[in-house]
């Protein structure tokens, strides 16, 4: 109880980027997310952890309304981005997704050139006035994706021809190219080797300077390394949410403790 109040104060002091209240998600009759309240802070990395099937991806996909693409999915409650409800009738999800970018678990570059992969977002959002502008955006994004040095000589080679780790960094670069305010990452390192993982983690740390990053991960070490705040989900409930350090060293809920120590999952 005491902890919860502390968290509240903490949040009030810093900017709250996304604030979810009483979120419920149903897939048909399946109740996948049960009454979740979360406040995600700006310029912070927030990690979602929890056993498989507990609803991490589902909740993440609520934050940029990717769940709209699933016919049977129904979302209740309110999620506010900078104080505006993203499930308001007036919100166009397409416009929202330009602000809340997403990187998927499996690298999914377009079967186009590396350049076009990055340039696509800026093109459809009209972020570049001319070719030189676009070139600059592409270079900047690839640098931020920590992949520029590897691909600068073959920008017009197909993005699908890269290795898995390079593809994932390309996807991250593609996501940052549209200048989102929030970046959602669903297990971005699950297909990567330790070296690529380290690169991506480094990248996430850099991104924190400008964005609010939410990352789903199955690796407790990763959550501990990259995030400042951690949320633990279990069977659709948000069990515990707070400073990463606190969650890992001194969890309040017994379920969190057993998960972290490897007894449930």
């Amino acid at each position: 109880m005491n902890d919860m109040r502390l968290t509240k104060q903490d949040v009030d002091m810093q900017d709250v980027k996304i604030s979810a209240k009483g979120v419920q998600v149903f897939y048909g009759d399946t109740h996948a997310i049960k009454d979740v309240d979360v406040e995600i802070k700006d310029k912070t990395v927030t990690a979602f952890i929890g056993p498989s099937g507990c609803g991490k991806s589902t909740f993440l996909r609520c934050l940029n309304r990717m769940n709209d693409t699933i016919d049977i999915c129904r979302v209740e409650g309110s999620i506010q981005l900078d104080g505006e409800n993203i499930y308001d009738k007036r919100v166009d999800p397409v416009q929202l997704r330009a602000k809340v970018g997403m990187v998927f678990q499996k690298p999914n570059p377009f079967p186009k050139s590396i350049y076009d992969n990055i340039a696509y977002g800026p093109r459809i959002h009209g972020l570049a006035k001319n070719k030189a502008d676009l070139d600059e955006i592409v270079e900047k994004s690839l640098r931020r994706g920590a992949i520029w040095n590897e691909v600068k000589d073959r920008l017009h080679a197909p993005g699908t021809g890269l290795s898995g780790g390079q593809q994932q960094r390309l996807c991250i670069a593609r996501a940052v190219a549209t200048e989102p305010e929030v970046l959602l990452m669903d297990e971005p390192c699950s297909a990567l080797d330790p070296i690529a993982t380290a690169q991506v983690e480094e990248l996430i740390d850099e991104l924190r300077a400008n964005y609010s990053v939410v990352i789903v991960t199955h690796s407790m070490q990763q959550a501990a390394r990259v995030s400042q705040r951690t949320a633990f989900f279990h069977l659709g409930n948000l069990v515990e949410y707070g400073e990463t350090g606190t969650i890992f060293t001194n969890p309040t809920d017994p379920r969190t403790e057993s998960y972290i120590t490897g007894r449930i999952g």
Partner: protein
Amino acid sequence: MSLADANTPAPSAAPKSSILTTDARTKKRNRAEARFKAYGIGAIVLGLAFLAALLVSIIGNGIPAYTQTFVTVPVYLDPAVVDKQGNRDPAEMAKTTTFGYAPLIQNAFATEVSQNGITTDMAPKKLADILSASATGQVRQTVLDDPELVGQTVEFRLLASSRVDGYLKGRVTREALARDKNLDAAHLDIIDTLRTAGVVNRTWNWDFIFGADASESRPEQAGIGVSMVGSLFMMLVVLVLSLPIGVATSIYLEEFAPKNRWTDIIEVNISNLAAVPSIVFGILGLAVFIQFGHLPKSAPLVGGLVLTLMTLPTIIISTRAALSAVPPSIRDAALGIGASKMQSVFHHVLPLAMPGILTGTIIGLAQALGETAPLLLIGMVGYIASNMPDGIAAGFMAPNSAMPAQIYEWAKRADPAYYERAWGGIIILLLFLMTMNIIAVILRRRFERRW
């Protein structure tokens, strides 16, 4: 003793099997596998044998249709016959009918025969049975096209009659002529001599490919060209209508439509439509386009509309299969960076589905090209395609036949010379289908991309 005993395995354990010998179970499985492979190879060999037999019979029967027997005859274009007024006015000259030209040609041919040292007691009229009945028309048309020729002796390459052509192709024998009123054995002797003299020869015949159909009694004159044009205009209609409608329908159903009872019903019905016999589409076309819509009978436009109805389900089914084969991660990727649904479909999904869509469309078109049954009911089968359409509009609206309808029509006619032409037509039809399939393969290769 007891020490050695301890090292040997207990006798109760099963003997260790060696992997160097195959046990009964493995043998049985291997035999089953070998049998299955043999069935497969057998089926393929049987299929290839049928294909080979088909090709051999088609080519063997059809190739002769591409050559034709011609007789080279110098004809004196007597002004007294062809230009009675003497003013070289084509309108006036047209008053001389083909009948008027007959004596000219008969006499010219008789002269040619005697000049080659042949003596015969046949009258010129009977002698000219060697020539096709179309000869008079050919000479008349040449004169009308160029009145300056009147009064000159012009060398004409006239079609021989189909009996003579059949004789050169080995189809007509002397015995068979005993029962034939059109030609006598005596004619054949003359032909043999004229052949050595180079007056009668059998050469490649472009007119079969590009020419028009002829009447029942003149198979030597018939060509598939006009019905080919009919098929071409039909295919244009089919392509222009079924590709956009089919692709748009598929995109809507696959990417945009909510999955509910209504779309389920539509889906099931599209699959059912693909299985509807084509003749049903024919009668639908008759009722809707001709009787209700008052479009002209036998017109390639109507044929194209009917074939569009028939092709649409094929295109829709293959396009939807191609769309759903595009991995959903591509759609997520596009949506995830803020592309709209439509942008994600048109920029990413559609290009990836393109090879499948094009293949489906071409296969649908190829099906439509070879389809005969629906054309029966809208009057394209049985129409004698004897005139090239003049102009694009006429190409769509003027009555015409189509390649498979033409082939059916020829196969139905009594004269064996037409039978040969039916096979010849099949070769062209197959060449078209093969070309379309090759194009489908090439397009698929060109557009195929990894993801």
